[in-house]
């Protein structure tokens, strides 16, 4: 019971880090919005709708990072059997659904505004939709399997298989012809010069930092809650 109370009260160094992360992301949020709407120039070829890029790209980066964290935490859970790794996997999978949904929605709206269509079955879009289904599949396995270690093990296997999708999404524009431009961000970027203005790079960097801080805050907050949920389940099992 002391453990549950400690989790739920949220005192200690964990909560201080959470407050700092929240404050930093709130400040960066204001700076990012100022940069996107007032500071960065309008891209000549894509026009005003290109400003969606400053949300779409960071959301995509965090959506893919989530599945990597889910897979690593699941692997550690399978090796060690510790519930903290499973709680981290569950937390990042839940946030992964949120980010994957936003990648698809923001991309779809951008395509509608700029190209005139909502959806096309090209490689990058389809593999991102597959990522969304992997997250939803993971959470459904967890929701419908028995509570305890068996459900966690099933979920871990789904996560490990699902992680294969992350490099496929990233490399989709290299391996297949897609509606997306060639890679201009990341380790194997081939088309870095196409962005043109340094202001565009700086705005993208600040926006990515802001979303990464926000993501870290949300992971910590949700993880703390998930630990309490797990502890409460254990207490309920003791009472039953």
């Amino acid at each position: 019971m002391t453990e549950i109370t400690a989790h739920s009260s949220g005192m200690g160094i964990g909560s201080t880090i959470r407050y700092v992360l929240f404050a930093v992301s709130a400040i960066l949020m204001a700076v990012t919005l100022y940069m996107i709407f007032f500071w960065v120039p309008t891209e000549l070829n894509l026009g005003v709708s290109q400003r969606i890029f400053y949300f779409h790209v960071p959301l995509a980066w965090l959506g893919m990072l989530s599945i990597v964290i889910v897979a690593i935490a699941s692997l550690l859970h399978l090796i060690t059997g510790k519930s903290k790794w499973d709680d981290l996997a569950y937390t990042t999978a839940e946030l992964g659904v949120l980010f994957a949904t936003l990648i698809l929605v923001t991309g779809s709206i951008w395509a509608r505004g700029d190209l005139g269509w909502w959806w096309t079955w090209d490689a990058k879009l389809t593999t991102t939709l597959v990522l969304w289904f992997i997250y939803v599949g993971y959470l459904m396995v967890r929701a419908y399997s028995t509570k305890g270690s068996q459900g966690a093990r099933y979920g871990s296997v789904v996560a490990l298989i699902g992680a294969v999708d992350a490099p496929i999404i990233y490399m989709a524009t290299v391996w297949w012809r897609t509606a997306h431009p060639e890679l201009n961000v990341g380790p194997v970027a081939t088309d870095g010069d196409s962005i043109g203005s340094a202001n565009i790079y700086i705005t993208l960097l600040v926006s990515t930092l802001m979303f990464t801080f926000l993501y870290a805050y949300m992971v910590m907050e949700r993880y703390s809650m998930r630990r309490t949920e797990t502890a409460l389940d254990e207490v309920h099992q003791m009472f039953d």
Partner: protein
Amino acid sequence: MAVQLVATRTAFASGMVQQNLRGESELPWLFAVYIITWAVFFGYIFMLSRRQREMRREINALKRALADRETKS
């Protein structure tokens, strides 16, 4: 030469007008993205805060159940 300059300027100005018109027509999509993104984040945080309230109630109920058990024994 002067005619060519005027023609170029006119073409440039009409291009700018087209760009501005296109920009204005794209604005609702841009705002839709920003509104939806923040609405989803706030919705998620609201859902978390509700879940936290439920858990607090659950913890208090468990505390009361434990206290009852101890007084009975």
